[in-house]
């Protein structure tokens, strides 16, 4: 496997532009969590011209709804959720500065185009490897929408969070590339 690229958040346009589909990355810094219900509220705020509850510039949003933390732990299990449910909202967040998204599964073509336009990338973490992924999460605090329970927006500090670049700023798609390589007609 190729070498692992270390990334620190917030992501700069320069760092994002160097990434290629298929790159293995290890992310340290802050991730903000949001699933569909939170995305809807964030986009509603933007529509009303109101500020978001966290700094979106260079931000990486992780699509996750963790399980509750056991006593003495910072988080429960915390693997990615399926990303297409966020497709309708992603371009608007890229417009205001979001640089990275972490989830699992294919994105819609217009989201891939928006990543090229706004210079943002989409990473996948291993869906379902949630107990393992939780080990890279060092602290968690709720920043908004506590009423949404597992879907609240959380600020997560992570260290060496493992992911792979699916869509880069050039419009490449690892799902397509990877599958073509192993397809037997």
């Amino acid at each position: 496997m190729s070498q692992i690229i270390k990334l620190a958040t917030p992501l700069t346009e320069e760092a994002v532009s160097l990434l290629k589909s298929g790159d293995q990355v290890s992310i340290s810094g802050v991730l903000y969590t949001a699933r569909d219900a939170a995305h809807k509220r964030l986009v509603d705020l933007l529509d009303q011209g109101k500020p978001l509850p966290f700094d979106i510039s260079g931000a990486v949003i992780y699509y996750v709804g963790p399980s509750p933390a056991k006593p003495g732990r910072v988080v429960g299990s915390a693997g990615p959720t399926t990303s297409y449910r966020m497709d309708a909202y992603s371009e608007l967040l890229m417009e205001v500065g979001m640089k990275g998204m972490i989830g699992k599964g294919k994105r819609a073509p217009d989201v891939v185009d928006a990543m090229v336009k706004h210079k943002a990338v989409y990473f996948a973490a291993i869906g379902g490897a949630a107990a393992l992924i939780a080990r890279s999460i060092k602290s968690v605090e709720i920043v908004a929408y506590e009423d949404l329970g597992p879907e609240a927006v959380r600020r997560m500090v992570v260290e060496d969070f493992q992911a792979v670049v699916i869509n880069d700023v050039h419009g490449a798609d690892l799902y397509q590339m990877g599958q073509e390589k192993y397809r037997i007609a």
Partner: protein
Amino acid sequence: MREIDVAEITEAVRQMSQTANFDLGKDVIRAFEWGLETEESATGKAIFKALIENAMIARDEKVPMCQDTGFSVVFVDMGQDVHLVGGSLEAAINEGVRRGYEEGFLRKSICDPFTRANTKDNTPAVVITQIVDGDRVKLIMAPKGGGSENMARVTMLTPSGGKKAVMDFIVQRCQEAGSNPCPPVIVGAAVGGTPEKAAILAKRALLRQIGSQNPDPELAEMEAELMTRINNLGMGPQGLGGRNYALAVHLDKHPCHIATLPLAVQICCHASRHKETIL
């Protein structure tokens, strides 16, 4: 008539809500090991390793293997010589889910379909009851995650399409599902019956032990062919490319109406959770 107190059912469901989420079946872990050995893609191999490690962490630390601890689907095979006492069956099952999910620090993922307001205790469970011979009650708790559940389909094929139409639909369903249901997956499909019958049989087919032989030779042959066709698509673990997208294909069939050919396809992610208790 044998009497069983529903409190026993609550207790069994409470325990299984947790053990199902913490302790992945040995057949699934063996399938990961097989996947690791036979996978051609380096990324795919790394994924199988991570899944084995993840399952070990979950088991040893008693934490859920996946944050989506699922919809509590409970199969109840009720012996017809059993008389339940002490309350109602569904309420007893829901109480078991409520306790199990709270005590086990499991995520509550059930909500109103329109307002999306969470019920906050993972109830109600989906209870699938069948009356069988005997004086025992078999309970199977099968928590099912939303990501793979969204990939399920029920279709009414044209009878003239036959086996080919059935197999093509299943392969195409997997192709469209791609990386969404967290591959490697188990594919369960049932042909025949009515649409709702097929959906239940397909769900139940997911519970068959991985690596077990289908007793119907015709279905066994179809399973082998489907496995090859699905894995030849090259989607691999997590859909990132590789040899092993499906760990197993399990088929079932049921007689259908002369005018119909129902087919249900259910996909289960690698977090293939189910535990069984016989009372």
